[in-house]
């Protein structure tokens, strides 16, 4: 059930109405039931897999607490969760990758496997591992009951595409049972509206059509169209994913929970390190805390640090999908980080004000990101190469597709506007509250967004991040 479908709208309205009607003590039980129902509607059988993984991990968590050698249970739990992820997500990829070698060496090819990827497995697996490690480290107390643990993993707004939750930030909220209050509700409504605008109007309706056509026939259109298509894809994937996250966070707010921010205008980053602090932040933090730091981080000299960065980014790329293009994409980002770390000794802090030089850095780094998106999106390496060749050798005179170009310009403006709104939110809120026409402005804007989203959903496609 996608968030941008009519059936989900009906589902969520029912969830919300009952949630508001039942006593606060029963709300978590209601949300647990709804979360399991939400997962069931896809393929009912996979609910059993989810519940099995949850139960097994909960059992191991309990054992780990009581055991004098907790690391044994931690390793079993992590191996079990990663094993399940590897089987469902990477088995086919692995077999396909070794098949040619196996055929050449032994004359036998392994059988073709066709395994359906359980929805959201990458996200909930990471959430399970994070909780196990945090409890092992003594950073948090484990959930008190299986029901609480199940709701922590399966909370439906974030179950299938994040943000990846940490026990420390979400378990205490679950203990309190979600606090419904007008300010949070209002924030929730606005987050959902922003999500619909980003995902449906910009991501699906305005941006997807040019990028999809060019990636379908790489190297055919003029260079100008290729350039616009790459820009379009860069914004499409951002609006698609951040729009989804906004909707998830908005629903969380309406149910009384605060879900973490996942994006902070990533294309306004001045360097690779800053980009990864702004893009899919919950994944970046996960990779830092549970992969990069355990690999040594920056504690053992530059060589080890560069190796840890590369491995982290390669695996981060692979997390996005079981295909070589994602590995290449991750590896290239890893290289960018290594080069940046080795050249710039003291990178500019995020809080330092923008200078003219920073604008040049943002533009330069945005283009570097766009080039890497080509490898991420192209179906084949040959396709990616054709696009690069056309971009470098084609002519940019004439043949500009005007509307797609204007859409990209609007996306840039929207991205800057996002930063302004986010950093000035309290002032905007109080200005609206003081203004006698504040309710009218707010209402008209929300209504307009709803109408535009309804009109744009005729080309609704699946969220790009669902395949991960």
């Amino acid at each position, binding site marked *: *059930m996608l968030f941008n*479908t*009519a*059936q*989900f709208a*009906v*589902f969520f309205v029912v969830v919300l109405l009952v949630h508001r009607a039942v006593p606060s003590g029963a709300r978590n039980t209601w949300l647990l039931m709804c979360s399991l129902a939400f997962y*069931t*509607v*896809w*393929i*009912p059988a996979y609910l059993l897999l989810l519940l099995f993984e949850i139960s097994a991990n909960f059992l191991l968590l309990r054992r780990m607490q009581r055991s004098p050698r907790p690391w044994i249970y931690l390793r079993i739990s992590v191996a079990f969760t990663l094993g399940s992820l590897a089987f469902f997500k990477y088995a086919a990829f692995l077999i396909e990758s070794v098949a040619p070698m196996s055929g050449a060496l032994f004359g036998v090819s392994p059988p073709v496997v066709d395994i359906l990827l359980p929805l959201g497995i990458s996200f909930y697996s990471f959430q399970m591992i994070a909780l196990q490690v945090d409890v092992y480290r003594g950073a948090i107390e484990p959930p008190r009951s299986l029901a609480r643990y199940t709701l922590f993993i399966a909370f439906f707004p974030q179950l299938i595409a994040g943000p990846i939750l940490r026990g420390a930030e979400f378990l205490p909220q679950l203990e309190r049972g979600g606090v419904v209050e*007008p300010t949070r509700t*209002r924030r929730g409504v606005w987050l959902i509206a922003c999500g619909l605008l980003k995902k449906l109007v910009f991501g699906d*309706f*305005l941006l997807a*059509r040019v990028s999809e*056509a060019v990636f*379908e*026939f790489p190297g*055919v*259109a*003029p260079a100008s*169209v290729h350039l616009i298509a790459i820009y379009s894809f860069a914004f499409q994937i951002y609006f698609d994913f951040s729009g989804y996250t906004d909707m998830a966070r908005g629903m969380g707010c309406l149910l009384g929970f605060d879900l973490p921010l996942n994006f902070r205008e990533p294309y306004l980053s001045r360097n690779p390190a800053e980009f990864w602090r702004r893009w899919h932040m919950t994944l970046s933090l996960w990779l830092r805390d549970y992969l990069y730091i355990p690999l040594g981080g920056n504690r053992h000299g530059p060589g080890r640090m560069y190796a840890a960065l590369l491995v982290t980014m390669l695996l981060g790329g692979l997390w996005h999908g079981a295909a070589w293009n994602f590995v290449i994409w991750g590896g290239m980002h890893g290289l960018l980080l290594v080069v940046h770390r080795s050249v710039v000794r003291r990178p500019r802090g995020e809080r330092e004000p923008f200078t003219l030089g920073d604008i040049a850095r943002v533009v330069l780094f945005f283009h570097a990101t766009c080039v890497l998106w080509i490898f991420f999106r192209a179906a084949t390496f040959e396709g990616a190469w054709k696009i690069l060749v056309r971009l470098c050798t084609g002519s940019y005179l*004439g*043949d*500009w*597709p*005007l*509307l*797609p170009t*204007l859409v990209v310009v609007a996306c840039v403006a929207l991205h800057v506007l996002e930063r302004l709104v986010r950093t000035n939110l309290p002032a905007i809120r109080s200005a609206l*509250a003081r203004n006698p026409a504040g*309710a*009218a402005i*707010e*209402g*008209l*804007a*929300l*209504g*307009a967004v*709803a*109408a*535009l989203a*309804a*009109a*744009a*959903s*005729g*080309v609704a496609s699946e969220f790009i991040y669902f395949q991960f």
Partner: protein
Amino acid sequence: MNTHARTSHRRPWLVLLWSTVGFGVVAWSLLTLLTTTRAPYPVVALDVLGWFDDRMERIANWPPQSHRVLFIGDSLAMDVRTRRVSVASQLQKRLTARAAVRTRSPIKVQPLTSSGFSLYSHYFVSDDVASLKPDQVILALNLMSFSEGWRSRERYQLSAFISPHRWLEALGLPLHEVGVTVDRLLFYRSIRAIGAFDAWWWLQREQARANRGYWRFAEWLQEWSGYPDGLGYRKEFQKLRFRRSRVFGDRATPSSARALLGAALDGVDPDHAGLQVLGAFLAHVREASIPVVVYVPPMNVEHLRSLGMYNEEGLGLTLKRIRTIVRGHGATFVDLHDVLADAEFTDFMDHLAADRAETSFGAVADLLSSHIQAPHTLPKAAR
């Protein structure tokens, strides 16, 4: 202070009221814009729902006292170009002639055929099929339905026709392979139950029109700017898409044959989703004591042989497994996959050629008619 408190209390309702106004104004403006610019109405997926209801209504008016044969199938059973000739129409001719000699009772063959109306769709509408109370059902079973490449063509919207008492059974079947999930099942059924098909269809059509409206505006902007070539790349892409479809053109390529017929040629597993769905369809119709003939339409065996892709053993296994399911449900199985020569086919999907429709569809009807029970041989309950 009090005034402020009263205002904040009222504020959510004011916002809701203004948002309704905002929604109405923007929606009306968009509709007006689309109408003014004459943005075209494309065909949308939900069209099939309207089509099915209309057809069912027409079929329900069987001629009184006739022997009623319901022919269910997809585009392989009709001439997709002219739509004038079909297996059903040829069968009508033959059965009428035969019945006139033997029983003098009129025979009516009603086609329930449409492009893409294949295996899973048959299951979705099985109760409605039974409710028509035909004396006999003939089912054209397209072997492509067993392949993964075909599944995106199945119309999950028709799951609205699965009766609620079948839902538990439906959830046990692998219908998710064609996009039927619980939410869709409930949603489309609810839309149908409250009679909101038309309203929902209208919304879908307008949304699809908005999609076309984008290109209208893009073209207008390009013309207005004086640089009309900016959208020239679209024509280039269209040409490429057309050329690619021409590759599949009049005969299957190895890749298209593999995509569409691979599963059937390799031999389907005994627990294949398609076999389960076929079994469920037959069980429903059998509950209503309606005799069924399942036949496999002709495929271009000659061409598959020339490609070196005709796996007789694998296909034999598939047909054997279908036969087992069909006979297990008391139905008749007729295998016509190898009855026509290469010249009778028109494209890579094994549609029959329009210029030879009379003879090729006639040949299929001839072979089928001998397997169809004459009215006087039918069990009393079915008459």
